[in-house]
């Protein structure tokens, strides 16, 4: 085995293998791929290229299309100058557009936060198309080269790829599992029947469903510290139950108002405490509402119950740009928060 020359190129990487590596690593392999590809461009085209700088381009978000089309341009120049007879796969404009479009699915999150697994998956797939096109072009550009021009034998197994796949999988597998679970639990979540009761908190409290149009979603769906989460009758209507152990009702109400004001500083908030004389439970309520340019009318409604064993809060939110629609939603959100009950 001969030692490759200092500026020898990385051996070609089969497109399918790149696709596999990106998939196995939840696209984390793109960082290594960028380093290797820009190293080749530096060695083959422009010594001024700094591969470590190019590794960071995924962090540019939708603006990745700028350096992305630059890589494609380097490859096109390389092809035009050295290999005029081979095919052309990665047009810079096309690559730039694909990379830009790759971020568009994330806009779905604004409309529907529950669609994050789908949005992320679509974004990855489109981004990977750009990388695969660039890799295909790179492979074509390297085709006329002598085997000795490569650092290792072309098309062979490379140890670093196995390491990358292994390490990347540490991140990728839990992520895929989460996405899968989320999709399975939430997208298949049936709408809860009015009157249904969902117990939680080791049997200390429950949520009685008082309205139609609500579905329960899995843990950590949107709130990592929520005990229960619900998806409401409209996209931007959701609710979550929190354990507020150690706090008084007043403290929870105060915290919730402060929390809302961090986002909506001019929200109009009211706090009130009521008494259930069957269970002698004190129910605290805080409602903050207002109108913002981004969300339209919004309402945070929170219901807090406390006894000697538990302090629990049911927080619900809705917003809508249409005031009439919002008014109806707001009532439904208020009704939903009334369903929080302590189990005595």
């Amino acid at each position, binding site marked *: 085995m001969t030692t490759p020359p200092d500026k020898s190129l990385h051996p070609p990487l089969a497109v399918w293998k790149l696709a596999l590596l990106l998939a196995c690593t939840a696209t984390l392999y793109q960082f290594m791929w960028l380093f290797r590809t820009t190293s080749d461009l530096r060695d083959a085209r422009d010594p001024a290229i700094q591969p470590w700088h190019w590794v960071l381009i995924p962090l540019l978000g939708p603006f990745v299309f700028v350096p992305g089309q630059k890589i494609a341009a380097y490859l096109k120049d390389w092809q035009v100058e050295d290999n005029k007879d081979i095919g052309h796969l990665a047009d810079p404009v096309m690559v730039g557009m694909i990379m830009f479009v790759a971020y568009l699915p994330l806009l779905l999150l604004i409309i529907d936060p529950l669609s994050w697994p789908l949005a992320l998956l679509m974004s990855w797939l489109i981004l990977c198309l750009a990388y695969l096109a660039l890799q295909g072009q790179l492979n074509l550009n390297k085709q006329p080269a002598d085997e000795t021009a490569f650092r290792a034998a072309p098309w062979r197994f490379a140890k670093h790829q196995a390491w990358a796949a292994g390490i990347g999988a540490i991140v990728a597998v839990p992520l895929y599992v989460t996405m899968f679970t989320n999709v399975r639990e939430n997208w298949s979540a049936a709408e809860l029947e009015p009157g249904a009761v969902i117990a939680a908190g080791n049997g200390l409290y429950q949520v009685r469903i008082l309205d139609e149009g609500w579905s329960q979603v899995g843990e950590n769906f949107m709130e990592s510290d929520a005990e229960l989460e619900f998806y409401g009758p409209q996209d931007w209507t959701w609710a979550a139950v929190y354990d507020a152990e150690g706090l008084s009702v*007043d403290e929870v109400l*105060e915290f919730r108002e402060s929390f809302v004001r961090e986002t909506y500083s001019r929200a109009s908030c009211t706090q009130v*405490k*009521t*008494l259930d004389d069957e269970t002698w439970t*004190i129910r605290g*309520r805080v409602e903050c509402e207002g109108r913002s340019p981004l969300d339209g009318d919004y309402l945070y409604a929170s219901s807090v119950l406390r006894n000697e064993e538990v302090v629990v809060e049911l927080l619900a939110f809705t917003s809508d740009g249409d005031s009439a629609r919002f008014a109806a939603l707001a009532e439904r959100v208020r009704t939903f928060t009334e369903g929080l009950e302590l189990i005595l």
Partner: protein
Amino acid sequence: MTGRLYLLASIALLATNAATAQQDIIIEDGVTWLASAQHEDPSALDPLDGLAPPNGDEVFDVLYRSVRYRLAHDTVTRESFRIYRFNDEESIRDYGTLRSGYDAASDTIAITRAMVVDSAGEMHVVDPATVQVVADDSFNVFSDYRNIVIPMTGIDVGSIAVIADVVTTDRSKDIAPWGAVLYEQYGVPIGKLDLVIEWDAPELRPNWNSQIEGMNCSESDAGALHCSLVDIPAYEIEVDVFYDDVTPQFVAAEAMSWEQLAGWYKPVFESAVSGDPSVVAKSAELAAGLDDETEVLRAMHEFVSKQVRYVGLEHGSWAYRPHDTATTLARRYGDCKDKSALLVDLLRQQGIDMSPVLVATTRKDAGKLVVPSSSYFDHLIVCGELGNGRQYCLDATDPYSGIDQLSDWTQGAAALHVDQASGPFTLPADDYSMAFREELDLVLTENGDLEESGTVYYQGAYASNIRAHLVGMTSDELDEWALADYHDAVSSLVDPEFRIDGIDENNRDLEVSWTATYESLVSQDQDLEYAEYASWLNQAIGFMFTENEHYSYLFPGLRFDSVVTFTLDSRWRVDQWSPQIDMQSRFGRFERTIDQKGSKVTLRSRFEAPKALIPVEEIQDFTTFLEIIQQESSWSVDGVLRD
């Protein structure tokens, strides 16, 4: 068994022979110690034969009790027979001296048995020379009722005492219809109770009713009623109870309807309303310059309640009959009926017609008055309607209440209109026996001092009760009272300056105002976290808890209104404050709204829990309700230090 009977008969014969050797002894006029009470008589214990002692572990039992009434045209005779058992030394100390009561004006009494059988079986007869006859007068009330106090002799633990007497009432000397009330339970358990009522003629047959479960009563054609009850436990002793309402009773009374009873009393009362010139003149004097009937009512009531003091001369028929109004006016004293008659007379001179109403102050449930009887009633007030259509009931013995409210002790009591052909009814009662409001201004100064100025306005019966306590105090004593109350309710950190208004004015609120400064109460260099209790409300709620476990609780009702303003120095900016409160329950409600304008936070609170009979099974919930209100009535304001 036959042998025992023979032995007892022999002993009884010996005892009878011995008795013939004794003479009746006159203790004093109308009080006789019969010869039968002067010797040992084992047959006195005969009622215990075959009788199991009462259950329970009481230190003092009534093993047997019997009451026998005999109703004749001229007399009523009551034979009473009681057998007690003393189970420990303390019971001997507490109950070893027994009593028999009678009315010296109309009754004669004869003691027929007074002996003790000690634990060794030895008999001890009470020496009549040791017997005392004492008047049963209480402060400023004088009557002919007497108690014969009998120190029982030779009692040790396990002793049995027997006391028996016969009281004969001369009906010509007692103007009231005969009546008797017998309770199922007393403070001690009873092994057996026998009750007999006999009447000499059919027209003397009494009305009677027994609400006592398990009491067997049978009426014979021969003119007798026999009732019997065994193994009667003692009643449970609790504080917040009207025992006359909750204890089942046997009531018997001379046969008459409620209308007849009222008809009997009306002329008795009216005989005192003389329209004497002195009364006419006084009435004119009091009404001078007053055009409004309400003002006249107020003036007359104020005069009679405040300037005619309470002294009861209730000898003989004066136990029921008011003294002539001219006499009462001249004496400037009288009891409830004297003062009521005077008030009626004064008002009638001004064309305002009020009439007497008999009141049973210890009974709040008029439905329990099932047999028409004067025995229930112990008080008299007057009621009537003014030209404006408004009803008034006035207690002429209450110098601390205005005309808009009845005295606290008569509110809600069972009563009988003397002028109306109707049965018992319940007197009006305020929904809130304790009603008061608070105005409080709190100012937090730049250097962290809290300047407090406040006024508590006591209203209605609550004001009357406090007035009764405060009236006659010197200014120093008033300050001491107010300071102690403030320290108890609010804080002992400061000694405020007080002002008290309305002590002598029944028709307005009683006001207690104060100012105080709490120096350096908060740090001036830090954000503010100020919390405060609703101190006066908490104190009042503290009076409302009951420890009843066996009887329903008649909750007197509490209403509290409060306006608190809390003003921060410009050093702080108001940031957050307590939640509003809207707590509704079956016992009452508590509401609080909070407004903030600039540096001032205003809290308006109202607590309302109306008068109610809380069933014993609800008392725990009721206690929880009060505890929650005490806990939730606190409030807080947070301020952020300005840059």
